[in-house]
């Protein structure tokens, strides 16, 4: 009896603490980052990123146990490499880019890791490869449509190299991932354009003759409008602005070394205006209140949420512009500073409109 008691105690001390449940098999293939419970031993090959409420992040290496402090959220991140296919033009679905990318180990020179910031501000719960690829594709398509990156018909080798430089920098600056390889590919087998058009025409016919609902399973002609819940969208956009604007300002300050007095003033002015936008975001009135204790009408809430979203879109453009500033090197910066002026003006306008209680209020100012 005494012997068995002794054995029990021994077993209790020697047995490792029970692991919290965590399925790491999806990491590295379909998921880039998964929320990790506190106390988890970080699986080999992965890293943990812990983010507190203010967006400050730290990393823990594989093998150690996640020890989150009060208020911290933890993710388990697999560095990859990952492979994906991007369509650079919405109108040309059969030609694409096959991209191999990886998430870097933390860069000791940087004060904050861009990927950790991405996790903190945009990840929500988890980062799945599919969702991430969609974000990357949107960023790429916008840069191409604006003419900041060029991928024209019959791209020559020089143009391809210039594109690669810009694209690599865009991915690193915007998402904190490094592009290892990127090649043009024929996506015809996977994304048959003829079949897409066929489905669109069939859907159009169905719309004309609703009785012919036989092809219900056919593809939707236009992507269905994403569900738009003002409260969620607004909160997400504002959180992004709140967390990312200070980091963006810090990066803009370091990216440019003003060459002369004029440029210095311009640079200072830009940073000052960004600072004011950041302040405006930090003190943004609640979505659903017109004044303390006064509820705001539903359609005005929708309007406010739309402005937040557009401000977040301007923020995306700002990151893309930062990438262009970094690759610009010695070339003239006038064009880029004009772009910066435009983006900051957009941020100011949208933040101002988000504060307004009614659309009329802005209209009256405008009259």
């Amino acid at each position, binding site marked *: 009896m005494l012997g068995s008691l002794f054995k029990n105690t021994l077993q209790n001390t020697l047995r490792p603490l029970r692991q919290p449940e965590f399925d790491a098999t999806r990491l590295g293939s379909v998921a880039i980052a998964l929320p990790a419970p506190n106390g988890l031993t970080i699986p080999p090959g992965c890293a943990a990123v812990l983010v507190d409420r203010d967006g400050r992040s730290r990393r823990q290496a594989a093998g150690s146990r996640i020890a989150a402090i009060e208020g911290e959220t933890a993710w388990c991140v697999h560095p990859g490499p990952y492979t994906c296919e991007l369509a*650079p*033009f*919405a*109108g*040309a*679905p*059969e*030609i694409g880019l096959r991209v191999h990318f990886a998430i870097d180990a933390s860069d000791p020179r940087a004060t904050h890791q861009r990927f950790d910031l991405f996790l903190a501000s945009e990840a929500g719960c988890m980062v799945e490869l599919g969702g991430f690829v969609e974000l990357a594709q949107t960023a790429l398509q*916008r840069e191409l*449509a*604006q*003419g900041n990156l*060029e*991928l*024209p*018909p*019959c*791209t*020559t*080798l020089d*143009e*391809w190299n210039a594109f690669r430089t810009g694209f690599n920098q865009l991915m690193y600056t915007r998402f904190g991932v490094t592009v290892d390889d990127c090649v*043009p590919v*024929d996506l*015809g087998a996977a994304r048959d*354009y*003829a*079949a897409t*058009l*066929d489905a*669109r*025409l069939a859907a*159009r016919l169905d719309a004309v003759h609703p009785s012919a609902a036989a092809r219900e399973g056919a593809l939707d*002609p*236009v992507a269905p409008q994403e569900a738009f819940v003002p409260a969620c969208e607004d909160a997400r956009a504002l959180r992004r602005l709140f967390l990312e604007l200070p980091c963006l300002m810090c990066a803009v300050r370091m990216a440019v070394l003003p060459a002369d007095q004029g440029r210095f003033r311009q640079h200072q002015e830009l940073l000052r205006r960004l600072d004011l936008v950041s302040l405006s975001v930090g003190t943004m009135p609640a979505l659903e209140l017109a004044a303390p204790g006064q509820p705001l009408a539903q359609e005005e809430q929708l309007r406010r949420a739309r402005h937040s979203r*557009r401000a977040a*879109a*301007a923020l995306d453009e700002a990151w893309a512009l930062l990438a262009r500033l970094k690759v610009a090197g010695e070339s003239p910066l006038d064009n880029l500073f004009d772009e910066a*002026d*435009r983006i900051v*003006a*957009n941020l*100011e*306008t*949208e933040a101002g409109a988000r504060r307004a209680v009614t659309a009329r209020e802005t*209209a009256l*100012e*405008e*009259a």
Partner: protein
Amino acid sequence: MTTIECRSIAADGGMLTITATRRPRAGRADVKCSVPGAPGVAERMQQVVRLARHTEPRFDSRDQVVLSLDRAPADGDRDWELAAVLADRIVRDVFAPRREVVANGWSDAWHLGRIDGRRLAGMPDGVLLGGADALAHLGALNGQPDPAAGISSARAWFPMHSGGEHDGLGWVEVSVRPLARAGSGEDKDREDPVSVPDVDAVRQAQVAAVLAGSRHFDGRGQGQWRTTVRFGEPRFSGDSYQLALVMADRMARGREFLARGRVIATGSSSAWHAGRVEAVEALAPKCALIAREAGPGDRILLPKEWEAALPHGLREALRARGASLACVERIGII
């Protein structure tokens, strides 16, 4: 402050003039419209312009655009809508036409860039006409396919040179529509149907052969499409349109990277099935023509054999204007 004018043919046959002015925003509305005696039309104009701006990739809140119509259009007449959208784009340098614009067209889906139709009967020369049989969406101004349409069409331009005053850029448009899947089994051996209205039988056969060859090189697109090819000016001679035709076909089938502006190409080939591009005649006048006509975002494709003989400074002049030039040996990337 910039001011431009854009016109539209009114229901009574006269002209409606839209004046667009761009000035610093200074805290005012982004678009302001005025129509004498018709506040409802002014309101609709503001709505149209704002909706059409959704199709632009670049948003700029620093400017205000003021649009005004010189007189009220007839009741229910909406043909001025296209002119208003274009005026708004021209005054902000989003669209840079080579000549004065007269445009007629209306739409219920400006936010998609689609142009549904026009009231104007006939097809007067020099008028930009909206509608499925003419300008079906705003991207088509640069020859780009509509990413939401069921039938995909793309345009490419080629220099037409005859040594006369009619020299200019001609366009070729390729529209493809999927062959019905059902019944494609028995037609497997037949060639893809290609129709080229308004040209003679020799030209028709040549166009069909060029498309068959280049699609063979591509490895896809055989037995998939019903194709219609239209030329802006069906009466011309020579083979130098072929590269433009091949590029328009590849863009329409969604298999080519897209330029922001137009694709302007000249070149022919005796071996499209190998994707080869060969030289054509009249290098100097065609280069001069291209240098004159090219605008921001345009992509110019010339045969590789021309590279050594290109006029001095052409590349730089084009780059300064925002266009890019490549001399290609074969179609496709690199």
